[in-house]
């Protein structure tokens, strides 16, 4: 299995779009690691993070060349959220992960394989629901944010190895349940000025 596909999403304004991450692995030098599909600098640099994260999490890194395509290829990709889907794609091509088609993955990798939070997770979860992808894997710190979206199962993960364990045995993991939070008390005493009246009516401008 040399070709593997995972799904992720990119922020576009305040909306998100699904991005397919295709990983192709073939004989060649491991120094050949090409990312195509209009990646920005942060996306292109992710190969260094991925290599270190895979090695440091004990998965090893194959002695093969890798080409990664971010489709649709004509949309600019920005940010570090693609670290995780690309890493899982490589593991998939190595045969360590079976299938991740029903999952949408986002997350930045640190060199030891820990997942770091990314921006725009709420939009990404909303996009996943729209497109019918039912499972969303996000960094644990973003879980409560993504969990706001109803209709998708959100999994907050701490480490790359945890994501792999989940993809091998999904039944062992529980989706994140958003806890209804208490609105915090903001009301403060308003000092009395003659314009208290004006304040009261200015909210009407809304």
């Amino acid at each position, binding site marked *: 299995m040399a070709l593997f596909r995972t799904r992720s999403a990119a922020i*576009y304004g305040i909306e998100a779009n699904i991005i397919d991450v295709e990983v192709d692995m073939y004989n060649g030098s491991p120094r050949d690691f090409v990312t195509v599909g209009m990646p920005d600098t942060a996306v292109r640099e992710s190969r260094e993070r991925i290599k270190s994260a895979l090695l440091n999490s004990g998965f090893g890194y194959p002695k093969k060349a890798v080409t990664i395509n971010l489709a649709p290829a004509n949309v600019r990709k920005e*940010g570090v959220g693609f670290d995780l889907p690309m890493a899982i794609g490589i593991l998939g091509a190595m045969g360590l992960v079976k299938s991740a088609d029903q999952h949408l993955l986002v997350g930045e990798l640190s060199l030891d394989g820990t997942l770091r939070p990314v921006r725009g997770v709420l939009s990404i979860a909303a996009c996943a629901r729209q497109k019918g992808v039912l499972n969303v894997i996000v960094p644990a710190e973003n879980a409560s944010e993504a969990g706001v979206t109803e209709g998708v199962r959100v999994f907050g993960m701490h480490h790359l190895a945890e994501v792999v364990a989940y993809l091998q045995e999904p039944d062992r993991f529980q989706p994140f349940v958003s806890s209804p939070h208490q609105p915090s008390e903001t009301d403060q005493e*308003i000092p009395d000025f003659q314009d208290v009246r004006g304040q009261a009516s200015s909210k009407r401008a809304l």
Partner: protein
Amino acid sequence: MLAKRFVGILPPLTFQEALETTQIHSVAGILPPGTGLLTNRPLRAPHHTVSDAGLIGGGAGMPRPGEVSLAHNGVLFLDELPEFARNVLEILRQPLEDRAVTLARSNMTLSFPASFILVCALNPCRCGFRGDATRECRCTGAEIQRYLGKISGPLLDRIDLHIEVPAVPYKEMRSKDSSESSAEMRVRVLEARMIQQRRGFYNAYLPSTLLREVCKLDDAGERTLEMAMRRMGLSARAHDRILKVARTIADLGRAESVGAKHLAEAIQYRSLDRNYWN
């Protein structure tokens, strides 16, 4: 001090509003870790050195939402208004009218929602003592002109309520009488909002075709309005806005129709048109 407490009397966020605002904050990457939905209306108070891209959004690569969008469904507070760069203030006009910002770039056109309440504060002149009863203003006429000239007529025209805030007399500062609490004020706000909801529109969103019908005036009201328009030389936009504010004041007082006294109050909130810019 006042503006910061303003959020406390606004109606709570509806679920949809909270979702929109949280989404913008999420994309901007400023949600505190572990936060789910935002529950309070945002209050954004950018410093007056803010750039135009910082205010309406933009930036290299994928444009990010600016302060006006971060204040979506909340309050944008600009302290020391004349200190802001002129081009930064002028770009506020379009979001104030459209409640959204559209950024056109060579390779994409993006739209960020930006429905916010604008609250501004400014001194009457550079030294701050113009019109003060005890201290003397030392600004020259030209200095005052230059200071206030930063704020253009069209921008001022879009601001519905102007309030002069004189220094608090010592006695009042030390008095122990407590005033109305935010919670009490909020109750009145919510009541007025209910009334408007029954009418079908919040006053600020009232379409101009319905404006005349909803804000029907009696004879005394018509005369008051006509006189104010003539004397103060107000624009058509100011006319519509005064009517909406008057309707709101009537709602707050639970009055069926807009009377002359509601109108008079609405007109006196346009004091800056009258006192400072003429």
